[in-house]
């Protein structure tokens, strides 16, 4: 595990979902904790998200979804990451994800799902403990 450099994290809102209270808080909280955070704003397509991950040489991708489309959009993003040779990038999902869907996301390779009410420090600790798989 790499302790030294700043972890690079892309945070993404995909699809039409406009709920951005959470993702903005996470963006600011992770920046305050010393991570390098890229948040390109609302309405990103899965293709655009994966392009950003590649361009930014990201260690982690955090996807925020509150519209119930996680089982449509997350598989698409995972597939595109694989195709782009970015399967090593860690993927987190945050937002409203029913309990029953969490194993399905895990099976796709999602490292962790953070539901509503997750304290910011939990996410920070998780990322610090995992480090980078890109820049190991």
């Amino acid at each position, binding site marked *: 595990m790499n302790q030294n450099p700043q972890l690079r994290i892309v945070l993404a*809102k995909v*699809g*039409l*979902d*406009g*709920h*951005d*209270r959470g993702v*903005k*808080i996470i*963006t*600011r*909280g992770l920046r305050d904790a010393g991570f390098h955070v890229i*948040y*390109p*704003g*609302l*309405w990103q*397509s899965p293709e655009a998200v994966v392009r950003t991950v590649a361009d930014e040489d990201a260690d982690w991708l955090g996807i925020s979804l509150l*519209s*119930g*489309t996680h*089982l*449509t*959009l997350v598989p698409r993003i995972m597939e595109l990451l694989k195709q782009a040779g970015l399967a090593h990038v860690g993927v987190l999902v945050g937002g*409203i994800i*029913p*309990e029953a869907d969490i194993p399905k996301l895990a099976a796709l390779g999602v490292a962790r799902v953070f*539901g*509503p*009410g997750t*304290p*910011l*420090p939990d996410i920070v600790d998780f990322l610090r403990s995992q480090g980078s798989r890109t820049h190991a």
Partner: protein
Amino acid sequence: MATAMDRKLWEQWRAEIEKAPPPVQPATTVSSVPIEPLYTPDDLQDVDYDSELSYPGQYPYTRGIHATMHRGRLWTMRQFAGFGTARQTNERFHFLVQRGQTGLSTAFDLPTLMGIDSDDPRSIGEVGRLGVAMDTIDDMRQLFDKIDIEKLSVSMTINAPAMIVMAFYLANAADRGFDWKKLRGTIQNDTLKEFHAQNEIYFPPEPSVRMAIDVIEFCTHHVPQWNPVSISGYHIREAGSTAVQELAFTLADGFHYIDECLARGLAVDQFAGRLSFFFNAHNDLFEEVAKYRAARLLWADRLRNHYGAKQESSWKLRFHAQTAGCSLQDKQPEVNLIRVAYQALAAVLGGCQSLHTNSMDEVLALPSEHAVTLALRTQQVLAHETGVTNTADPLGGSYFVETLTRQMEAEARKYFDRIDELGGMLPAIDRGFFRREIAEAAFVYQREVDAKRKLIVGVNAYQEAEEKPLEILSIDHAVESEQIATLRKRNGERSQDDVARTLDAVRRTAEAGQNVMPSLIDAARARVTVGETMGALADVLGRCDTAVV
């Protein structure tokens, strides 16, 4: 001392509390406003009852807009509903009406809210998921099938494409033989808060406002009992604002709509009485009550003294309230029932005209029939068992609530000044003022929760190791393919000449700067879709693709 208070007794009490241990949590409101340990007649020394409070039904309506308030007439119990196809939502409407609901409220799915069709590639996974899918007038006809829309009032939560959905509604109503003059209801049509908070955006701010004003202007002339805008603080609060920000930004939006209507040549008394409001009902009972009371006072003052409105109906701020979705927790979700009940109490004590109570499972999914029934029953218990309806403004005169109301009023006025200093509403939007203010407040709140200076039951206090999952509603994913198939079939059956001709007329009207509503009604009858109509309008009005961070 000018007060009747005995200073000595007061000092005794003061000495007493200095000795007491500090509060377990900081004594602040949900919005982090510090609260004194006690309020006394001292705080209200300079209140002039007649000019600041007066009687319910009398200017400035701080104590309510009707003389008898809920004693004379209960608020409308209006549960927001919509999912899947128009047929499915129509069934839910009939279900709710049979259970005693007194008004209907329609939720649309994300593609509709964003002004695109079900078969647009961006709609994938979203069709019928968060609300009902609406592509053409045929969906509107199905949605209100066998519902007497001259008797029941209907609310529709739609913004960017509000003028198109309103055109569908009016064309359908006329085709079914209903009289536009008798239609009662509300279309949200509040585009400004989309730019502050809710993010359902299609055109740039200025033409977006122009479309909203077209609806207001058209309804003023042709659908006189309809509320053509519901100026909404709800979403601003959900995005993380404080109570004062919700209050101030919402009223400032209202002032902007008034300015724009006046610029069209309407007289203030022609339309002001039909402007309606929509506020959040959050957890902090007294802060919320103070917010609603201050809102009425501020609005009445502005309308009468700044805009020179002469009719009392123009001065009265009428509002719908919805309990705070953002306060619902996915941990121990049944506890949400309790939160919702207190929030509903705040809305009612604050003098709301209609109310939606959230279902306990809405943080997990769209509500099940069981959960939505309990949410409605919460209002019925409040109305019929608690006695809160017996007297108007029961918290009026409370040293605390009156002080908080005045504080809220003063803080909101400071925000009005800041918006003016920034050059007004649209320049303030351009500079990202509202978004920054709201994001800052949301961040402060989260930090308070993370540090356990604010406790949330089940989340950062009183957690349970084992959670019993709730049964939640799942939407059949066949909805999306069904909706798309129907849409494509209907599109194939339309007269393409009519489609092209009416869309052309929409473009020309928009270009000429005329009110687009008549051309939209013609397009609706030609079965032009929401997405096609938005596209034609965008040819003239431009698009807003900037997803502001």
